[in-house]
């Protein structure tokens, strides 16, 4: 999975970048474009209502009340024969003005307070957050009713009150955005250089938080309109002759038994306008999210699978292998392009054997293991290759059939022991559930075996551990529990993905000796994924070195340490503190593992290799056998042997 993690480097440029780009991106979305066009049109016809409305909105025609749509009255007439279209056009003036008032208040109060709370922190932040909490606990609409009871029929005051009550939400959003930026290097630099706070906030912080503000403003406009039409519907803001959208719905509700139609023109305009504000807000949010991810992830170009590459096969005593993996390839599917993460991996695991899969982060070792276990995350899929278990092809099995192998044949221990246990259940109940699934025994027997398993992994006071939950255990204890869970089904192969990485050094060696003891007692085979040579030396019989989705070298562990046959293995060994020659300087390999999609065409290690010659970069290099159990993917292997002889 590490292979796909986006770069954690977030050295964004401080400039107020990409505002025009964001606008263009926004306008490319049809929903956003439609919403924006609708709102602009609505504002224009409302302002120009005296020019475009066909009738006076108060002109009554008592001879023609409750008429349906006709050429005279496009949207019909109301209870007093007034033209519905004209009243909607005039009503828009009041509604849109109210939205503007509400949004203006929210922005004017929420943005400065949020900036101040996020930028200064401390007691200012604590007080503002507490006040925001209190305001959020009040059902806002009732408080506006209090206001309207004292200052009757005044919609402006009502909208100001509504805006104030909506402030805490914006305050929180702005505060959170400001907090993230405050720690950025250039803001810190501006502070150190003695720029006045006000200038830093306005010039450097505000432009960066404008995105979330615009999104919240747009969504708040939708709520403001819901609210405004609501109080107008209740008849709390204006006299009956003044046209308002909400008031028109209210009037229609009184004649709902005689004439349904009257409900819909005003109701539909309200719904469409709210929808437009909401869609605009959503689209803005999408654009901002896209902008942010565009600046934080490296562009990943797709590579085509290199099928011309001769299938690399490692001949390791073909008979009686427990697990045989052949030409396994895993790709990341992104739209229509596939990016290979693991590319043509083949290896075997014999009964009782411990095989190490070694390499730096991002070389594909965990993905390989997860593919074998069918535990790939949704965005990855196995696109090539075979996996055989005792001669039985596993890739042909349906998910359900494959599930029957889990735990009982193939087991798995993950890197982070604590998150890999369900936080909400006790250790005992999780273990018992797994035991009962495999043994089909009574609850009491299962409980007993759960305790036995905890004792097997050398946990002191197993009864106590069984009553505990994951967060109450130390990392080492949690990893022992995870191993107990894996062993509950009496598996033949344990796939352990960096089982000791998250643990302290002393705990690491305890876990390793536990694994070694279990292996001796049960004849378990282990496929161990690690980047730690110490672990490999300690427990593995054989090691497979991976680089950029491929195997680059395989050998028995002793051979690998004594006579590495690939420059990458050599480099890894030299950069490992405990293996370097005493007194010699540690050499770090230059560069890093290229991310999937950016692999070179020739030897993938060539750009970092000190032995590289021009031929290395010309064509893909095949894995070739050196002896029955050794193979390397290097065309200059003879020279390397000569140098190190």
């Amino acid at each position: 999975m590490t292979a796909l993690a986006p770069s954690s480097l977030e050295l964004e440029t401080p400039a107020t970048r990409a505002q025009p780009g964001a606008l263009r991106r926004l306008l490319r979305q049809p929903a956003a474009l439609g919403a924006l066009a609708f709102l602009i049109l609505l504002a224009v016809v409302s302002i120009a209502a005296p020019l475009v409305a066909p009738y006076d909105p108060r002109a009554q025609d008592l001879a023609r009340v409750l008429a349906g749509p006709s050429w005279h009255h496009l949207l019909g007439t109301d209870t007093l024969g007034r033209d519905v279209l004209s009243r909607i056009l005039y009503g828009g003036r009041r509604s849109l003005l109210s939205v503007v008032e509400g949004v203006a208040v929210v922005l004017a109060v929420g943005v400065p307070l949020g900036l101040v709370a996020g930028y200064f922190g401390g007691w200012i932040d604590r007080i503002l957050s507490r006040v925001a909490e209190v305001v959020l606990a009040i059902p806002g609409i009732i408080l506006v009713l209090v206001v309207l009871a004292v200052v009757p029929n005044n919609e402006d005051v009502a909208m100001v009150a509504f805006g104030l009550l909506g402030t805490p939400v914006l305050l929180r959003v702005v505060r959170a955005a400001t907090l993230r930026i405050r720690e950025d290097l250039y803001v810190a630099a501006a502070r150190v250089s003695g720029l006045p706070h006000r200038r830093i906030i306005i010039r450097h912080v505000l432009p960066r938080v404008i995105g979330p503000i615009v999104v919240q403003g747009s969504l708040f406009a939708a709520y403001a309109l819901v609210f405004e039409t609501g109080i107008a519907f209740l008849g709390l803001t204006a006299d009956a002759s003044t046209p308002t959208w909400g008031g028109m719905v209210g009037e229609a509700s009184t004649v709902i038994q005689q004439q349904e139609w009257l409900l819909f023109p005003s109701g539909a305009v309200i719904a469409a306008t709210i929808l437009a504000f909401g869609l605009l807000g959503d689209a803005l949010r999408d654009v901002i999210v896209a902008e942010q991810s565009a600046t934080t992830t490296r562009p990943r170009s797709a590579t085509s699978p290199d099928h011309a590459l001769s299938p690399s096969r490692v001949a390791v005593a073909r008979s009686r292998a427990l697990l045989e993996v052949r030409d396994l390839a895993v790709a990341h599917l992104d739209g229509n392009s596939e990016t290979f993460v693991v590319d043509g991996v083949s290896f075997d695991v014999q009964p009782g054997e411990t095989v190490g899969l070694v390499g730096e982060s991002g070389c594909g070792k965990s993905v390989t293991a997860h593919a074998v276990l069918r535990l790939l995350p949704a965005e990855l899929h196995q696109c090539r290759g075979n996996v055989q278990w005792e001669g039985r092809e596993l890739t042909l099995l349906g998910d359900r059939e494959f599930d029957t192998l889990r735990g009982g044949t193939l087991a798995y221990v993950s890197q982070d022991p604590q998150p890999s246990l369900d936080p909400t259940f006790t250790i005992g109940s999780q273990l018992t559930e797994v035991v009962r699934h495999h043994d089909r025994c009574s609850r009491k027997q299962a409980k007993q075996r759960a305790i036995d398993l905890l004792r097997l992994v050398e946990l002191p006071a197993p009864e106590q551990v069984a009553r505990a939950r994951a967060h109450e255990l130390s990392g080492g204890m949690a990893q022992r529990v995870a191993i107990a869970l894996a062993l509950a089904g009496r598996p033949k192969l344990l796939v352990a993905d960096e089982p000791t990485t998250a643990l302290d050094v002393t705990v690491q060696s305890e876990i390793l000796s536990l694994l070694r003891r279990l292996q001796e007692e049960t004849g378990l085979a282990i496929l161990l994924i690690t980047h730690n040579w110490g672990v490999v030396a300690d427990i593995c019989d054989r090691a497979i070195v991976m680089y950029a989705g491929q195997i680059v070298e395989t050998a028995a562990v002793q051979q690998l340490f004594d006579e590495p046959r690939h420059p990458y293995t050599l480099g890894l060994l030299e950069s490992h503190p405990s293996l370097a020659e005493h007194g010699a300087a540690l050499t770090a390999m230059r560069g890093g593992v290229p991310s999937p999609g950016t692999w070179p065409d020739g030897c993938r290690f060539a750009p970092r290799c000190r032995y590289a010659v021009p031929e290395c970069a010309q064509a893909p290099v095949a894995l070739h056998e050196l002896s029955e159990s050794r193979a390397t993917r290097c065309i200059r292997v003879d020279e390397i042997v000569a140098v190190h002889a």
Partner: protein
Amino acid sequence: MLRLVARRVALSVPLVFVVATGTYLLAGLLPGDAARAILGQYATPTQYRQLRHSLGLDQPLLTRYWHWLEHAFHGDLGVSPFYGIPVTSLLDSRLAATFSLVVGATVVAGAIGIGLGMASALQWGRLGRVVDLLALVGLAVPNFFLGLILVAWFAVSIQLFPATGYVPLSSSPVEWIRSLVLPVVTLAVPGVAVIAKQTRDSMLEVMARPFVRTLRASGIPQRSIVFKHVLRSAAISVATVIGLVFIACLSGTVLVESVFALPGLGGLAVQATEKHDLPVIQGVVVYFTAIVVAVNLLVDLAYAALDPRVRVS
């Protein structure tokens, strides 16, 4: 667990007090005059003075507030100038309708929302689209308009349910349910979408966690993983959202009870606003805030029940 409850209660009582105080002072400081609002512009100066005196408005704001507070601590929120009866007995008589409506809407939204959310997390058909569509309707169609459409269709066109009115549970359970169907549906629609989205998102989030991989790798069947393990972890954030939906429904009663002429607190608040009956609206503020605080407390307890880590800290 008990200490957690005690601490939460200790924190929430002051909150009700702060909100009640804030509302009272706000009403007093606003540039309006309840007496003038009640009497209108044609009242004589004598009438105006008399009413101001009987409302206590001729005393300084802080004196009035202190008086109000003293009584409030004894469970007395004053007498309604319009209805002429004690505010608390007026509000208590309206609690049943509001509770039936809000609890009903939350239960309906929770049941349908969780079901839809689970189904779309497990990718059964095109339910994701249904959720998105509901979210759009829930946002765009204000509840008073949605309520009226339902009345037009299900009470006027086909007379399946009564258009307005409320029948207490004690007089006829069947009629009680019939009178609540349309208002409950009206209030529940936006909540369904919100709860469904949250359920889907948090289930997908939990299903990507390492412990689910461990359970799968240990051979636990998918059914048990989803219904026992994933659902329980996902329920923590769903509980929060259900609490928020309940509070939104409570605010929604102001409009929905007016549309359906239900004798509840929300509709009462609107009538009191029209009559400039401040003690009643302030009483509704206190009741609503107390309910909100109580619901938040329940959500916290649900948290503690679902997530053992909360219990210790």
